């Protein structure tokens, strides 16, 4: 066996103090905690690539080749600052690692020139990551002192953006796989279950069901075969937690899967990733092969007598497959349609056998819980809801990114303190939590502490943890219309309340936002009736839909009707959009002072709504105008404006 491999496996099984000094030094080199030559890491996740990390990578390579500098260049995950991409980090031997923001290809030569001459360009540096036996850079802030990181407790995200997701050595060198190996050596199946029950870990996918209890029911069901499935079908628009967990630290997730599979006494696990997440698929696939190669997956893992196979399955893309019974149906090769519960999958799931479906974030929590103990985990967050939760913040906040905070943190801290609130001069209008099935939360509720129970008390929830920040330039009604249209498309069509209800809901929202002049005679009445009946429709959908999609589809509508009624009233009664986002509700005017009377708008108007005589200001007849905006586009004198 390869001596490096052997050493890594020994490290995973023993206390590091049991190793010799030379061995420890060799391990530090292997896991890149001590460097022999400079190390440059480029964030190659989706967000980095979109911002141009591919070109940055090539520029770094070119730079090193041209100047003949011996330095390593490696891929890494995201540190969570999605709006500061491409993020690049540089570490010189014996010094702490430095992180830089917005390093596009054209900035690479100047930046690397500076660093190799020990000068740090202040406008690009984010901060430094303190490390063992590493000399710090003076005048550079530690990452922990930057507001974005200071208020977070990064437990699950700890190594994301710092380690190479393709290197098992880096993960093991930082304590990885010691949890799984101690579990299969020291504990029985039920002891692991009890340990996780004691830790109080709850499912992070929105429901908040205690993970240990779910395992226990599956473990107690007698069967010849049991299955563990990791649900990585993250298709909420605006949620990217699971994606960056898989892309940043795939081995942590796979260790979690292995622990969970062991706890329920299963030796067959699946990880179901939406096929659109190509980068995640690539990293997980590589990680599984690497683990097999090391003997950490397969038959008789390190002579413990425990067998485990993890297979990767690509989800062909359906929002409803995030629901566990639909996911199982999809794995079985059928349409992803949910089944009535009970029987729960923990009794009869995949191929009729007891099956546990856990989410990526839940499983990524496990190695830490085992390594540091349930009492450590209980000390974080709230009593009834321990641990942390990762939120993906997007929209109009100053920073877009991944934020991991202890349970019980308020929205105010997350949105205003960590991600810096909305742009200066703007006002926060609402935060939308939980994607298309989520809730509109008004600024008045920003001080709400986030736990499952607390949110439930206010008839809210956190869903998958996507937070969309809306400022005063956005329209709540338009956003809700977007969500209802999305859910309408994604309903699987199995049960009638959801199939018909989501369609009706989308129609009503569409009608609210469409132009008055296009309405046939009675539709004004239909519009009012639609809004009035929305509440009872929501009630029926909530009570009678089969799965979470139908039951939660009315959430955006109901919460926004409750807290943003005046916006609806402006759309429904006054037929105006207060923030001017709903284009069809705009009224067009011609500025008398600017109009030269060239008559081009009148000639191009499809509704013949513009009247006037040449060389005198023209006029738009509001009753005839269809709001197409062509006059606005063709006017050479910017005389057309809207209100």
């Amino acid at each position, binding site marked *: 066996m390869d001596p490096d491999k052997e050493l890594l496996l020994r490290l995973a099984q023993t206390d590091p103090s049991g190793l010799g000094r030379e061995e420890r030094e060799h391990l530090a080199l292997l896991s890149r905690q001590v460097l022999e030559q400079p190390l440059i890491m480029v964030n190659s996740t989706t967000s980095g690539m979109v*911002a141009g990390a591919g070109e940055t990578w090539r520029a770094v390579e070119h730079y090193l080749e041209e100047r003949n500098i011996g330095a390593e260049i490696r891929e890494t995950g995201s540190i969570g600052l999605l709006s500061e991409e491409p993020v690049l980090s540089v570490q010189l031997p014996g010094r702490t690692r430095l992180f830089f923001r917005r390093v596009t290809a054209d900035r690479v030569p100047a930046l690397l020139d500076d660093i190799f001459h020990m000068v740090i360009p202040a406008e690009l540096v984010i901060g430094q990551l303190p490390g063992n036996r590493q000399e710090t850079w003076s005048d550079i802030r530690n990452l922990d002192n930057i507001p974005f990181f200071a208020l977070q407790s990064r437990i699950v995200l700890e190594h994301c953006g710092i380690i190479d997701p393709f290197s098992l050595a880096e993960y093991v060198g930082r304590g990885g796989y010691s949890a799984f190996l101690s579990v299969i050596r020291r504990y029985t199946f039920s002891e692991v279950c009890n340990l996780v029950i004691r830790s109080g870990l709850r499912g992070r996918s929105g429901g908040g069901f205690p993970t240990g209890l779910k395992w226990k029911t599956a473990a107690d069901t007698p069967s010849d075969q049991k299955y563990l499935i990791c649900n990585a079908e993250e298709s909420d628009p605006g949620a990217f937690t699971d994606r960056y967990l898989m892309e940043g630290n795939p081995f942590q997730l796979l260790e979690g899967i292995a622990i969970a599979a062991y706890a329920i006494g299963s030796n067959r696990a699946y990880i179901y990733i939406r096929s659109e997440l190509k980068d995640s698929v690539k990293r997980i696939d590589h990680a599984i092969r690497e683990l097999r190669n090391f003997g950490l997956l397969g038959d008789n893992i390190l002579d413990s007598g425990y067998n485990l196979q993890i297979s990767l399955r690509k989800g062909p893309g359906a929002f409803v497959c995030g629901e566990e019974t639909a996911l199982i149906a999809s794995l079985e090769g059928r349409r992803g349609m949910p089944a009535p519960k009970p029987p729960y999958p923990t009794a009869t799931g995949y191929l009729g056998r007891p099956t546990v479906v856990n989410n990526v974030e839940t499983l990524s929590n496990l190695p830490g819980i085992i390594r540091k103990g349930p009492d450590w985990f209980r000390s974080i967050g709230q009593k009834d809801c321990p641990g942390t939760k990762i939120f993906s913040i997007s929209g109009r906040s100053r920073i877009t990114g991944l934020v991991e905070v202890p349970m019980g943190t308020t929205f105010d801290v997350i949105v205003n303190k960590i991600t810096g609130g909305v742009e200066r001069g703007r006002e926060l209008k609402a935060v939308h939590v939980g994607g298309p099935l989520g809730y509109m939360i008004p600024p008045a509720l920003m001080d709400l502490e986030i736990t499952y129970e607390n949110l439930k008390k206010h008839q809210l929830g956190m869903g998958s943890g996507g937070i969309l920040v809306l400022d005063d330039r956005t329209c709540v009604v338009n956003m809700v219309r977007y969500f209802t249209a999305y859910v309408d498309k994604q309903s699987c069509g199995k049960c009638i309340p959801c199939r018909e209800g989501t369609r009706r809901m989308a129609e009503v929202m569409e009608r609210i936002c469409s132009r008055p002049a296009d309405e046939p005679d009675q539709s004004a009445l239909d519009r009012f009736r639609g809004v009035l009946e929305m509440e009872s429709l929501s009630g029926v959908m909530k009570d009678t839909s089969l799965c979470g999609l139908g039951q939660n589809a009315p959430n955006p509508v109901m919460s926004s009707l409750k807290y943003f009624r005046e916006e609806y009233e402006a759309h429904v009664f006054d037929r105006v959009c207060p923030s001017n986002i709903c284009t069809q509700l705009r009224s067009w005017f011609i500025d008398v002072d600017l109009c030269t009377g060239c008559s081009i708008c009148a000639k191009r108007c499809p509704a013949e709504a513009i009247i006037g005589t040449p060389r005198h200001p023209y006029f738009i007849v509001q009753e005839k105008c269809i709001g197409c905006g062509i006059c606005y586009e063709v006017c050479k004198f910017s005389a057309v404006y809207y209100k």
Partner: protein
Amino acid sequence: MLFFQTDHLTLNDFMPAHPDRIGDIIARFPHVRRNSLIPLLQAVQDELGYISEEAIVRIGSHLSLPSSKVYGLATFYNQFTFSPGGKYHITVCNGSACHLDGAGRLVEEIKKILDIGDGETTRDRLFSLEVQSCLGACGQSPVMAINGTYFSGITVKRLREIINQYLEDGSR
């Protein structure tokens, strides 16, 4: 002389090259099980770029499933397409952050310029359009990609320039 040299040739050497790509893919899934249906379709989609009628019929007979069931399943999921994509495949993100920054207007504009809908291909097979639910780069919204090249923070004006560029390249 030539006559004597041909005796080692077989009949196949005179047949036109006709690779059976669907057959090759099916051969990789020897187990007749329902749960290999989706991986099979995915393999066909990845290698051929779309699911052809022939593929549906042959997969059905391989797995002893009626073609209607195979087609029903394939149309249920977003990943499968039933016509070959264009030379330039445009993916527009319509996630919530991109929608907030005007992704809807971009989609409308593309539909207007190229005269195609979501999941369709232009008649000259140059462009195809796909609207995705979220590309996961919410920090650079609105985002779109053409054949894997990403464009971030696009405006309608920028979009027109990009498409014109590709139109020029494509007609060359």
